[in-house]
């Protein structure tokens, strides 16, 4: 099997969300469902001197995240009808909407929140890696969309050879849980002395 994966350069990402909107346009998604989303992780403290002048170790970085088409996908494992399927050819995790009963188990099992429940259609929907584009020799639309080329896509072994094997960066879940096919370049902000104060600053945008 060829396993594909994503590379996210968080040091280059400005959080513009073009990836998210390109995906929505391509997949005809409305405001309630995003297959790719951009998380803002922020933190830091402020101190002032006698003049009221401020110093701060505030940091903020943006991290684009979608389905990471994991080696051990929690969604596949939990699905009671076997409707979530890891494709043998590409490693992409897809949904068989004919058998999906819309129970929503996958949406809570996935540590990345990738599968979404389409309430109106009562089925799970998710990123399929733009499988058709990829099989036609292209790349996922989010990758081609990034104005600053912060996203890359390819065979995961090749991505790791080119960019390393980091796949953990706050606020993402521990990669040991599911083996995401994801490589991250961390931003300078990840080394901030106040990193422990970090929090997901835009929970309402990425829900």
């Amino acid at each position, binding site marked *: 099997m060829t396993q594909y994966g994503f590379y996210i350069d968080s040091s280059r990402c400005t959080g513009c969300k073009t990836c998210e909107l390109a995906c929505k346009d391509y997949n005809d998604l409305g405001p309630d469902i995003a297959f790719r989303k951009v998380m803002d992780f922020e933190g830091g403290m402020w101190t002032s001197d006698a003049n009221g002048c401020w110093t701060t170790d505030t940091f903020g970085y943006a991290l684009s995240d979608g389905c990471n088409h994991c080696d051990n996908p929690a969604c596949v494992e939990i699905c009671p009808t076997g409707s979530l399927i890891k494709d043998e050819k590409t490693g992409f995790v897809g949904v068989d909407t004919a058998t999906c009963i819309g129970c929503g188990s996958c949406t809570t099992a996935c540590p990345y929140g990738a599968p979404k429940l389409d309430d109106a259609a009562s089925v799970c929907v998710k990123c399929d890696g733009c499988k058709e584009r990829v099989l036609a020799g292209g790349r996922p639309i989010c990758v081609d969309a990034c*104005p600053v080329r912060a996203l890359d896509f390819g065979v995961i072994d090749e991505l790791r050879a080119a960019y390393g094997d980091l796949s953990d960066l706050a606020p993402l879940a521990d990669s040991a849980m599911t083996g995401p096919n994801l490589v991250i370049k961390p931003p300078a902000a990840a080394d901030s002395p106040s990193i422990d104060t970090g929090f997901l600053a835009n929970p309402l945008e990425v829900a």
Partner: protein
Amino acid sequence: MTETIEKTSGVSRRTFLKGSSLAALAGVGGSALYGCSTPEEEQPLSETGAAPTVAHPAEQDEVFWGTCKSDGCGQTICPLRYHVKDGAITLVEADDRGDGEFGGVQARCCLRGRSMRQWHQHPDRLKWPLKRTGPRGSGQYERISWDEAVQTIAEKLKYTIDTYGNEAIHSGVTAIRNDQALERLLNCLGGYLGGYGSDSRGQLETIMPYMMGSGGPNGSSMTNTLHSDLVIQFGNNPATTRMGGASANYDLARAREKGVEIITIDYWMNDSCVGHPEEWQPIRSGTDAALASAMAYVLISEGAIDEAWVNKYCIGYDESTMPESARGKHLSYKDYIMGTGYDMIPKTPEWAAPITLISAERITELAHKLANAKAAYISQGWGPQRHGNGESTCRAIAMLPIITGNIGRVGCNTGMRDGVSVGLVNPFTTIPGGENPVKTMISCISVVDAVDHGHAMTATRDGVTGADKLSTDIKFLWLDGTNLLNQRGDLRRSHEIMKDENKCEFIVAQDMFMTFTASYADIILPGITRNECASVIALATAGEFVGQLHIDSIVQPPEECRNMYDVCTDIARILGVEEAYTEGRTWAEWQQFSWEMYQPYAAQMPGYETMPTWEEISKDHIWTSEIEVTSKMMDFFADPEAAPLDTESGKIEVYCERLANIAATWELDDPTDVISPIPIYTPGFESYEACTEDYPLYLSGWHPRQRFHSTFHNLENLRQATRQQLLINPADAEPRGIKNGDMVSVTNERGEVHVEARVTPRIIPGQVGMPEGAWAQIDFDGDGIDRGGNINVLCNSHPSPLSKHNCSNSAICQVTKL
């Protein structure tokens, strides 16, 4: 220079198969949105339900070059690839020519470009002419025929001209098309009261020519930063204002990875320093001139200035080059900085620290970084000048590149916002507007004032140009694709004036949607986009290529939406000026006319040597040409005698005698307003010093990523991706019991806004901020509270001292949890 004419990519058949399961799902409903709009007769205007969706197997799509909202982002005009099937847009993709890898030049659009399908096919689009049936601002309208619409407008135009004269007609700038169709009509009818300046940078663009000539407001391209070793940007945020299209945002990312040090001075950690917190220098909003002055003090006092070099190019840096009228009076810039003139206060870092809230040590460090740079690129966004006395702020910042010699060569800038290497050719003039016989103008910000009391507005108090005073109030207002009432400070004041039918007697709005502003119009005309007609658009990047896009009606306008040119032709016919207006040309024929009219001039511009013929561009649809990176004012700095500026003296007027004369003769209506012949720091109208116990917080705004000003606010996906929120520091939120995501009330004497809070350390304590452009939702006859999150409800309408432009980043407020 390399010619890169694309011969074959006009209509690309290259497509990818769509995800069949998702396409099928889209038809089920739920997440499906914005397919082919199938408008139903008599669809109520308030209906916002999604139109039926088409699944769109892309293998059957045709792909055409098209554009985004056509006046771009001030710099970026992206070429987009529209997939079209059965007359409907099915997908929008970005530029795919050129090198897609990092470092290559491929003008990839931003999230707004990716929303063009939704914008074009939104179910809320206005579809036919409307006549107002309720009070102004109520949004109550009924459908009328085009015949009735154009007949009514023609009659009102004639009545206005006969009764009040042409000066009583005003046209708000268009934000959708910029095609001059309306201007041409009004000029054919004897003209109209013009507007100068812009909401974007009105203070800066009015005052900079006094100091640096007509090119003064324009900066070098951000591409220059690839040749710099230091970037210092005051209140500049290309990562949200020019984020797509191989523009400033991309250039800054490339410069960073080349190892260029970047410092962004802003009251919030804007998106340009996201991921790179070390680049952010927090500052108190509105105090940039104090920081710049203190940095100048360090540089001057440490002998880091080559004063002979500065004096070669400048008037009034020090006493030796002062004009005769001001000689011997300690009125030079250096006298101001060193405390030997004006307020006699040395502008030391210790002086600036409690103003800017930046420590003296850090200010000194910033000055030293600048002193040590080989090629510093110093810029300012348009936020610092959008304060009280911003006219002085923008000049104070511009002093830093001048006194340090970081100007007039590649890698450097003029201290202005990053610009483009080559001016845009014919994007906004696809039809010649003609000459306006009425020479009187007002600041474009003064429209509501001129409706209210135009007859009392004068040159020396209100900035009327071309005459000593206005002869009349504005009686006929044509809002041509502009949401200006939403975008100017103090909405309640605007409402009170605009609702009065005895003041402005007739208002026409042309727009694609029922905006806050359109709801004040007596007649509303449904507009079209540049992709729904024949169009020629100049493409732009920051500094690496120029280009042109030829669009040939990618899709048809919905329902009864019409090109403004055709509407104006109807009105011209009724009023007997059709022949003068059209000269026998259709809209499409004007495109060719304008192209060929510009061609001889364009060929003299860098990159345009290879501009194609009309026949070629009509076939190829897109043409681009690479250009060399250049910096602004290179000719002047190479030889100031041979290439003088078009200022009075031909040099940079650090001390400007004309401004001194204006300061001595103009009436200013607030004691905080200052017109100064040299750049100084002075807090200005409603500065941070105006904060009170009741309104202890300071409020400023910025241009957000999810909208182009107010355009696109109604696109649900963009609104969710980046929600309209008030940024507030935990130090201010916690005592108020406000948590991230809570709804809060923001109030001051002008109004009340309800908005979601984003509690984040990314904004300096004492300051709150929210992006401009959200559509106001106010019942002025009810509780008067805006639930749309529109900052302008809280912003002032005070005109700046010289340019009479907006100072809307200067506001005090209180925030409470709801």
